[in-house]
């Protein structure tokens, strides 16, 4: 893994964590999307050095990039895509109910704690 990739992953993680702890749901969604990117990038980078695209008819075993983390990362991208869309729908619903997208404290939780 190179310093360039590490910088990208670190920045994405930091900004993601910072944003998901915000009160505004749209920022939280943004944060989750960025965290997703961080994970995917880390996954691909952990697979080893860059190589030729893993297309069996065009490369040899010596120069090929590791396809396994790529396949895992593809699944990760799709899942975080689904998660982001669902959060967007939730934010939309929240806006319809309260007029903004602030995440309020869970009153039920507070009630339990009384």
């Amino acid at each position, binding site marked *: *893994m190179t310093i360039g990739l590490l910088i990208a992953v*670190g920045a994405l993680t930091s900004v993601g*964590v910072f944003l998901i*702890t915000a009160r505004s749901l749209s920022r*939280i969604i943004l944060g989750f999307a960025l965290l997703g990117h961080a994970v995917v990038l880390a996954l691909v980078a952990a697979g080893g050095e860059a190589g030729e695209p*893993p297309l069996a008819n065009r490369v040899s075993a010596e120069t090929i990039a590791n396809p396994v983390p790529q396949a895992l990362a593809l699944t990760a*991208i799709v899942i975080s895509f689904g998660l982001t869309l669902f959060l*967007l729908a939730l934010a*939309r619903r929240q806006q319809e109910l309260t007029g903004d997208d602030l995440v309020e404290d869970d009153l039920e939780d507070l009630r339990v704690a009384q």
Partner: protein
Amino acid sequence: MIELVFAIHVVGLVGAAIAGRRSIQGALRVAAIAPAATTIWAAESLLSGREPVSASMTWVEQLDLELIFLADSFALMMTLLVSGIGALVFVYASGYFAVDARGSIRFPVTLLGFSVSMLGLVLAESVWTVFIFWEFTSITSFLLVGHKLSDPSAQQAAWRALMITGAGGLSLLAGLLVLTDDVGSVLLADIAGSQTASPLAAVLVLIAVGTKSAQLPFHSWLPGAMAAPTPVSAYLHSATMVKAGVVVMAVLGGAFVDSQTWQWLGLIVGAATTLWGGFVALRQRDLKLILAYGTISQLGLLVTLLAVGTSKAVFAALSIVVAHALFKSALFLVVGEIDIRTGTRNLDELAGLHRSMPVAFVVAVLAGVSMAGIPPLLGFAAKEAAVEAVLKLSGIEQVVAFIGIVGGSVLTVAYTFRMLAGLSRSPEDGRTITALAFRPAMAIPSIIVAGLGLVGFVLLGTINGIVTPAATELNAGSAVYELLRWPGATTALMVSAAVVLVGSTIGAAIHRSETATVLGEPEPVAARVSDASIDGVLRLSRRVTARVQHGSLPVYLLTMSATVVIAAAAFLPAVSVTHLEWAETPVQLVLGLAIAAAAAAGVQVRTRLGAALTLGAVGVAMSGLFILQGAPDLALTQLLVETIVVVGFVTGLGHLARTFPPVTQGWLSVRLGVAVMCGLGVVGALAASSAQPSGSFPAADLLRESVETGGGNNIVNVILTDMRALDTLGEVVVLAVVAVGVIALARTSRSPGRAQ
């Protein structure tokens, strides 16, 4: 066979749940079938004297966690009691609940659930099986004690029972861990055969026994548990569940025969409990409470005998277990019948009961005489065995056991005498008790259990055929003992005669001076102490809950992120920078920096549109990196996904205010700190992991497999659709669920009724 027994109970649970929709009576009758069948099985196996059957089911092999059951003589004797009395209690309960009661599933199913748990406990052969079913009995007992949801005192009593027996469960777990660690086996037979047990294990197990079997100072939950419906009191709190502690003490006893801690702690606690329980029972006016404290007293007797642990004492203890189960459940059943038919359980209001409810009175006398240990009833033979066991001891041990057992017996005779005298006295003002109609479903089970005390004495050989092998299972020396119908003029008989004489004199004296005000309601200090400590625990748990479950999403997420930092800290020692290079290609570095810059902009940006655009920028730069990395599939997908997400952001959030609400300053520094630490932690962990490359991947194999079995050249695609197809299936299901969720959310918000 054991599998079949459990299977019948599962069928019974389902059947009771179905029948309970219509009427609780039907459900209870259905529920009675499984215990009845089990009783027949247990009786048949005992009398035929077959080799014990066993059953096991592996749960977690690596942890030595297995459910193991073994139906040896002791287990079968307990099964006979648990299921036999259980079946009768189910029949009784069908008379106890009003005929017009609405259908109810909860009570029959919970009671049968308890029955299975208790069955599992007595049949268990590994310590973890014991523990699991032990906890099940605590939970079902909690549910049953708190059955009347509208009664706050019942709820309070249920909590108290759960807290005390739950704490005992933890103690048992700790004790069993120490024991299995010492012995190196989880099988009860191995543990009972070892004599290596430590004092620590002895204390922990005895605490558990004390909580479950209501020994001082943990006894206070049992009188409170009388808030449960009477069938529950008869079944759980006299015949079976409170015996769970005694059962565990009996089966583990072999490991502690040489333990001074075990003997003295058990002896002193048992003797004190039997005296205290008898003493308090003398002062009660509520019939159910008399029986409850009487039960505490009898349990103390059992603990005393098992702590002594000689072969005669073990034999006597098991005899008392059988006799007590019969007479105490009979008494509870009668008291429940009296309560239902007259509307009171108060001794003062029940004078003249022998006229208005003759059958119930006869049953009460029969069971009471057995409890007092007077011939010709089973209780007499059992108590004789206990006295003889004590007379065989020596030294100070004998003194303590003698005081406990003889003193307890005197008190038992006294409170029994007082209770029966109170029921048969003529009412002063000539009032008669008005009792509701005779209910066969209630009367017959009580007649059966009380009658068994008499039949058992007549057919003492059969009882011996059950008790002696069971005692031999626990202590090989017990094989020579048997219960005697008439021991002859022995010392033990003299002692017994004196006990009856003194006890009935005390009982008669109290009965004559029966002005309750003199004695007053006893309020044992122990109950107050245990209540205070339970309140303390509950308050503490509320305070902890308020701290950790505060309802603030940001703080939850901050906590999780901080945990990530801590987890990542473990990697830091392995970080080395020497192998790190700046970038594989200059473009990679540029793109990495671009991503970092775009992400940083995401923090700064004030407008929602701007936020969507920074996300898009990150996505595009990511695609670039994927191309460089040799992952065109990822690049393509990333680009497309990012497009849709950005459009979604703009559409979904377009109607919100253009800018974000201002950031609250309070947590800002904490959030920034945790966020930066998190980023550094992840970088550290990744740097550490890349310092230890895991070697090359099987490139040639993947190439070959992809073309030959996958039929495609795009290896990533073949992995997704062929090698990991099940994952991909799951992934598509996730997408479909998201779609359904989005549609559902949209429909809810569009429904016409919403605006009102």
